[in-house]
């Protein structure tokens, strides 16, 4: 049994089980299956701790660039195409897989009080969709066939729509449909790219004589177009055809257009200004555990998509759009921060802070430097830990007070001391206090942006503006803490129970990780991710250099 297949489909098994077990056991089954998935995903660790040489199913490259636990089965085969069930995990996917299983497990625990929710009907359906969502998310992170990737991408979309639309707050239908439409718009662009990339890769092979050696598998010849993401990124014939200035799509350069199509699809997910307005609405209306998943995992798919698809397959597109993307990233950072500053709704504030934090991910990736890529990746993991914590903190008080008006709170630290302490840890991690997880990612991204100044002079001012956001972030978070947790104890909240054992467990697990990631960033994240990211960046820069070289020499001959 392939480990990845097990990890991906175990939640689905649990989902089916939720439909058949007695109603009073549904919660237990759901928590158990998400816990089991987490346990299984931890089995991936030995592979990465050991460097990965011994893995019999490993393919492609060396060390961290290697794809581990690969499974490759023909799925839909035709004369001129082959769609495969192709899963694998490398340094890019591995931390995200573990993050997904972890956040899902904690969010599942956070759903434990389902029966006391405002909308508490359909417990079976809720946990069924919840676990189905987990399968979809895990599938996205490990699928290496574009077609399969797309299917998982859509599988994840539908449960989310229902989870928000059925179990959400007052304006849940609006929020759900908004989420759905935004994401669907991205999916459509991605679908166009999917089809176009398949046909163009076929054209490339046909132009090269109809049979081309695979870019990474020995002794394999490509006869027709492919959906294989690794192939698209590594096969020299396809790569040079994609990057060539004479390959046109709708009259524009193929790489430039395709990059943008994919980028927009992922940018909506990340989300990036101006595609972000679905996020605050979705978060505010979604139930707490769904918000945790949304912030902790779903947003990361955007960043993952950039790193898995956009840059390796269309490096020249990244080069063309670098300035625009970096600017948009910085705008997101500042814009999200300013919006957060103006919020009076607790959950909306946290949602906008996500927009700001995710801006760093885009900035780090856009400048295409080692530190930038690494920082963006770290920022994704760090935000994947700290933002579910913040959303759960909001949920805890919402469960008790049934409102989220920041200005109506006050003195909660006095009322609920343990909750106050946890909140301080969570929000300071989000603020980017050194020694906690938020700090490393931001610093790395800034370092990478400064570093990019050598090739892109515009990187310096952008880095300075992005760095100024530390003030903005501190402003809205400290102001929030002051209004909600400090100050006089209010009469209406007296007698509120402090966080329960279950709530403490969820918060404490995340709090420990917030600190651990800040103190041991190398051991917890960088050791696993840097190999793959550096390799990826190397290929990207090589490809860019080659294209600009050929452009120069072509110019000379012409």
């Amino acid at each position, binding site marked *: 049994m392939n480990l990845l297949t097990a990890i991906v489909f175990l939640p689905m098994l649990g989902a089916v089980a939720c439909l058949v077990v007695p109603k009073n056991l549904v919660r237990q089954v759901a928590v158990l299956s998400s816990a089991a998935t987490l346990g299984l995903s931890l089995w991936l660790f030995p592979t990465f701790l050991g460097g990965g040489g011994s893995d019999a199913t490993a393919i492609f490259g060396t060390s961290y660039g290697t794809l581990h636990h690969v499974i490759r089965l023909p799925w839909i085969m035709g004369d001129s195409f082959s769609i495969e069930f192709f899963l694998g995990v490398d340094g890019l996917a591995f931390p995200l897989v573990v993050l997904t299983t972890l956040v899902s497990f904690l969010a599942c625990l956070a759903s434990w009080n389902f029966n006391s929710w405002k909308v508490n009907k359909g417990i079976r359906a809720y946990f069924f969709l919840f676990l189905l969502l987990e399968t979809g998310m895990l599938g996205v992170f490990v699928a290496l066939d574009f077609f399969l990737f797309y299917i998982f991408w859509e599988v994840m979309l539908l449960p989310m729509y229902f989870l928000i639309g059925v179990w959400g707050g007052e304006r849940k239908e609006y929020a759900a449909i908004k989420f759905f439409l935004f994401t669907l718009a991205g999916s459509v662009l991605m679908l166009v790219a999917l089809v176009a990339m398949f046909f163009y890769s076929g054209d490339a092979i046909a132009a090269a004589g109809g049979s081309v050696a695979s870019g990474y598998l020995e002794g394999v010849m490509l006869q027709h177009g492919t959906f294989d993401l690794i192939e698209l990124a590594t096969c020299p014939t396809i790569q040079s055809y994609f990057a060539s200035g004479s390959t046109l799509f709708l009259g524009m350069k193929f790489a430039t257009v395709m990059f943008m199509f994919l980028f927009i699809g992922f940018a909506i997910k990340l989300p990036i200004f101006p595609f972000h307005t679905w996020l605050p609405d979705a978060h505010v209306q979604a139930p707490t555990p769904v918000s945790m998943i949304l912030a902790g995992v779903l947003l990361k798919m955007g960043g993952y998509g950039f790193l898995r698809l956009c840059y390796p397959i269309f490096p020249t597109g990244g080069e063309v759009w670098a300035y625009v993307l970096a600017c948009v990233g910085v705008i997101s950072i500042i814009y999200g921060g300013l*919006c957060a500053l103006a919020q009076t709704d607790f959950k909306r504030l946290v949602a906008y802070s996500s927009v700001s934090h995710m801006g760093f991910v885009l900035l780090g990736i856009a400048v295409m430097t*080692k530190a930038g890529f690494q*920082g963006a990746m770290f920022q994704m993991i760090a935000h994947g830990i700290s933002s579910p914590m913040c959303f759960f903190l909001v949920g805890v008080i919402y469960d008790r007070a049934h409102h989220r008006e920041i200005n109506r709170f006050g003195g909660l630290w*006095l009322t609920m001391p343990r909750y106050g302490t946890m909140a301080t840890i969570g929000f300071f991690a989000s603020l980017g206090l050194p020694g906690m997880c938020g700090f*490393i990612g931001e610093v790395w991204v800034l*370092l990478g942006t400064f570093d990019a100044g050598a090739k892109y002079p515009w990187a310096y001012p952008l880095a300075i503006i992005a*760095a*100024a956001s530390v003030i903005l972030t501190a402003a809205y978070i400290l102001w929030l803490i*002051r209004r909600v947790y400090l100050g006089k104890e209010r009469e209406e909240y007296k007698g509120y129970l402090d966080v329960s054992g279950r709530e403490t467990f969820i918060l404490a697990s995340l709090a420990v990780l917030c600190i651990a990631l800040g103190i041991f960033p190398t051991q917890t994240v960088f050791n696993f991710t840097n190999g793959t990211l550096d390799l990826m960046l190397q290929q990207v820069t090589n490809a860019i250099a080659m294209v600009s070289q050929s452009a120069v020499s072509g110019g000379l001959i012409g």
Partner: protein
Amino acid sequence: MDFDTLRTCALVILLAPLCAAILAGVFGPKLKGHTHWVTIGGVGTAFAFSVMLFLQVRAGHGAGFPVLIPIYDWLLAGVGKAFRVEFLVDPLTAIMLMTVTGVALLVVIYSRDYMRDHGACERGYERFFAYLALFVFAMCALVLGGNFLLLYLGWEAVGLCSYLLIGFYYDKPAAAAAAKKAFLVNRVGDFGFGLAILLIYLTFGSIEYQVVFDMVRQGLDANGHALAQGTITAIALLLFCGACGKSAQLPLHVWLPDAMEGPSPVSALIHAATMVTAGIYMIARCGAIFTASPTAMMVVAIVGATTAIFAASIALVQTDMKRILAYSTISQLGYMVLGIGVYAADSAVFHLFTHAFFKALLFLGAGSVMHAMGGIIDVRHFGGLRKVLPWTFATFLLGSLALAGVPGLSGFFSKDEIIHHALTAHPVFGAVGLVTALLTAFYTFRMVFLAFAGDEKIPEGVHAHESGGWMLFPLLVLSVGAIGAGYLGVGAKPFHHFLEPVFANTFMAANPVHGGHGAAHPSFWQAYGLMVVSGGLAALGIFAAYLLYVKQPWIAGLAKASWPGAHKAAGHKWYVDEAYDAGLVEPAKKAGRVCVGLDDYLIDGLVWLVTAVPRGLGYLLRTAQGGAVQGYGLTMVIGITVIMLVVLWNSA
């Protein structure tokens, strides 16, 4: 000097308070009123090992320093280099560590009684001691760190502790607001500091002190090119930005007076003796960078001098004892910054050292007054306390004499040195230093006279009483320091000689006044003449305060009435807070509201427009399929008619 001993000392100094913080935090609820023992143990151990480290450094004087002690690889930089957790030990570190842990130990002892009565919040007692131990850990980490990233880490960590401790009485809205303000204003400084570190890393390819400083001295960057003067000036100024935040220099001084909302022991330890001097420490540590840029040094000196006199002018009219002391702290920090700016880093560190004693003493004394007055600290509400609080009065008086710069006490020697160097650097700096000295003596004794002289006046319902032994003991110890510490800097100047190896290559060598040969020996008249002048100014200030506030109080009233505008403006701290509000805070909030408006109307409006197209089409198509058979029939008839017409037309 023995490397392993130093390593052990450094580790114990760091880990003992950290363990104390964790123990106090975890077991505090069980220990309750005994939690202070945990922190006393942890900080006491740190102090003992600081002394040991100091002795080690002194024993190996001149040879082999600074010592770099690597601990472990912290993280791998994106460019392939490792950032290590490493300590740097040299005489400056040794002195800072002793000052920090020593004052901290006394403050912890003092807090045992003080916090017992002022633990306004439930569970407050153990929380306080946990934070305090955490602060000592963070401050020691800041001082011990061997590279810029660790400095930054400690820098932010002390900021966090300061935030938590200012907001200790978090049910008080003023305290909650002050905590936020302190952290936020410091963040503005840290923004510059952070950029400086990035710039250092990109220029020199390293963040280790020694590597960076060596390259600065050689004038080379990471690629072996000559270092641009602009780069080094930018780095120095950005670093100074951070120092301005932490050490409350203009224009980032606004947080410190508000920080007095925290408990008095916190004010004494963090906001007078230790954390606020981190900026001074940083500039002194980065001497190589600062002295490489005369422009930056000039900025440092100007900011220091301006801050010194500006804060002193505000202190003249405040009525809250702790706020007077806070402005006094800002002013004294200004002296230190001025001292560094005129290349007298050893004098600045010396003033830092003596100031730690007498200012901690004054804050603890003010705390003792507050303790006796049932939490009231405004001098308008009490007076003539010398009989009720004899010990507090005696020690407070000693501290005030030291602060006022009365000859023979510690503050006199250290401040005089700075003024001397300022005078040789530029007459204006010297004049500012002297005028500030006069103001200092005046506002200090204005406070002393208002609180302790005259007829006894005690707020109603307050049972005034002298503090107990736990609080008086630290006051007495600090009094000894306030008197004696100054003598380390006279005669053979053991203090300065101890520090010499640290500054020999930087401030002393680069001093333009003495042609790069370190401090020149001033002539007899230069040295003693200045002493007489500044001693005279101190006496004059004290006498003026005596005249205005004891003998002829009407003069004070007349002065206030004659210059109402100036009095009001100084009372409002020259409207700096208001300027920040109008210039930064409100615009930021407005910008936030504008962004939200953009989101709700512009972006969502566009989205609505885009979705309106399919919606409109759908509406049209829906009306066509309403389900009414008559409608279908009509459409069918029309359709057939049209088709028939077309066919007929064509065939015709």
